[in-house]
């Protein structure tokens, strides 16, 4: 680590975490959705939350973004104990969330989606109206700044590719001055190339000084951009690392269930080859 990097790290640590979860738990009735999970998000860093389906990643997101409230533990924003009442509250505190599938309204044009919920207006009284020119121009400019060259800001956002939609949502959060960006599986449904593009924008948001929470089940994507890693398993934290103390192989192994994976590969190896592959109708080869 160079002196400059060390200083930067020190700075970040002295500033404290933007968002900090300290042994947070969440129950739905008698179901423990999340138990004792701790997570720190610092400015200019990417904290990755890794876990398989049902590990509690969505619950964690919902707490950070204000859709649900935690039942135990402490949730701090800028060092201050907080319970977020609703998503608006989270947005007002600088936490913007980009959801996997409900980031946008598909039938609405890109520029309307970009400003949805925070539309700029001009005029007063009954003539208070959307500043359409500003909205279109800003959308085009902000997307271009993120490197997205959009064909037409008037096209319904549903006609964009999955990667482009993610990028619009990220650009939106950056433009509205989010301090913390929460990304729910941004690369889940994307191909290799599109995933790369999205990760590039995630890194761009980090470089712009945002604290990023990246939720994913792909350790390769996480390791490419992440600074901190939290592993979730069946609602509990099964590991917490910084980039210095973990390798990709180790992360992948833990993510995949470690010893469970070894057992699985063992089983798969010994599985006897079936007599007939495919199990199709047998009529074809009987005379």
């Amino acid at each position, binding site marked *: 680590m160079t002196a400059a990097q060390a200083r930067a790290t020190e700075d970040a640590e002295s500033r404290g975490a933007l968002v900090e979860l300290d042994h947070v738990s969440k129950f739905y009735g008698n179901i423990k959705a999340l138990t004792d999970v701790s997570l720190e998000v610092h400015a200019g860093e990417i904290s990755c939350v890794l876990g398989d389906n049902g590990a509690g990643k969505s619950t964690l997101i919902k707490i950070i*973004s204000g859709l649900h409230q935690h039942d135990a533990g402490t949730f701090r924003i800028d060092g201050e104990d907080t319970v977020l009442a609703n998503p608006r509250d989270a947005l007002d505190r600088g936490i913007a969330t980009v959801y996997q599938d409900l980031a946008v*309204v598909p*039938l*609405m044009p890109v520029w309307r989606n970009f400003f949805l*919920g925070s*539309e700029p207006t001009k005029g007063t009284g009954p003539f208070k109206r*959307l500043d359409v020119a500003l909205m279109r121009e800003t959308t085009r400019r902000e997307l271009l700044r993120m490197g997205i060259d959009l064909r*037409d800001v008037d*096209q319904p956002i549903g*006609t964009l590719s999955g990667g482009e939609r993610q990028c619009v949502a990220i650009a939106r959060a950056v433009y509205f001055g989010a301090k913390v960006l929460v990304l729910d599986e941004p690369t889940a449904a994307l191909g290799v190339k599109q995933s790369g593009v999205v990760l590039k924008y995630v890194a761009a948001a980090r470089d712009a000084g945002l604290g990023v929470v990246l939720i994913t089940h792909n350790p390769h994507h996480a390791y490419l951009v992440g600074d901190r890693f939290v592993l979730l398993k069946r609602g509990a934290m099964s590991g917490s690392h910084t980039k210095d103390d973990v390798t990709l192989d180790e992360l992948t192994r833990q993510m995949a269930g470690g010893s469970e994976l070894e057992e699985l590969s063992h089983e798969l190896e010994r599985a006897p080859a079936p007599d007939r592959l495919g199990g199709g109708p047998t009529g074809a080869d009987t005379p």
Partner: protein
Amino acid sequence: MTAPGSTAAPDGADERLLRTSPLRKLLGRPELGSVVGAVAVFVFFALVADSFLQTSSIGTVLYAASTIGIMAAPVALLMIGGEFDLSAGVMVTSSALVSSMFSYQMTANVWVGVFVSLLVTLGFGAFNGFMLTHTKLPSFIITLGTFLMLTGLNLGFTKLISGTVSTKAIGDMEGFASARKVFASYLTLGDVELKVTILWWAALVAIATWILIRTRFGNWIFAVGGEADAARAVGVPVVRTKIGLYLGVAFAAWVSGQHLLFSYDVVQSGEGVGNELTYIIAAVIGGCLITGGYGSAIGAAVGAIIFGMTSKGIVYAEWDPDWFKFFLGAMLLLATLLNAWVRKRAEATT
């Protein structure tokens, strides 16, 4: 950037935008299906009914369109917001009854009744909106309940108070003349008689369109109808938006109700049943998606014009008015198919 004056796309435009020809933009409008339908209906009745093209029939057709159009505008906004209001038809009658009976029973100036009626009708709308957003039941069920309750209340109260199914005449009461001017007068231009409801209609469509495409509230209407969860997640006040939409329908029901009352001076308490579907049909013909998130107030106005032309055109053609419903059904199917086809074409990006 392309050089100015070159053969490539003009300055500032994207060379990949070749597809958006003016025709394509036109095809992308939600109103297109209804405009094509309206022209077809107009040509059809112009051919089969001689008196359809007389100037005097303009006023008649527009009046018929306006009585539906006043309600179709807010109903269209509500549908874009993803909800139905099955109580809209009888709410008009309720509004007229409240106004009439309050003035008569209190022997007050009819304007007092008119304003009490406004409050009560907005109360019905607020009830619909509140029940919908707080019980999370489908609006179909909530407003079906309101529809039945209002139908019962209309008949029950009227019989209880006046002993018959219609209200007492209020034609000789104070303020009646001025109220009639506002809600049920007409002006004559040459031999065209234009009812004041046409003005109300035009104003409501203009306001609805303004709200829909140029205000924050309009943006929220599209959003809550298109994807309510996404809207909520980015901070759109979903509950307030939906209640606001029901209040809009209630306001239009009040205007229609006062017209109903002041056109005559009595109100039949059983009226209005079935009209709620008419409003919805006008909105759907006008390009509103039944699932929400897409549509326009102008389209609903064109839908209302189709209604006006068809109902009066059949009379001018001297056919049995029973054919009206058949035309309506056929129109609804054709317009919806056309809308679906047009939208698919317009949204095809590859």
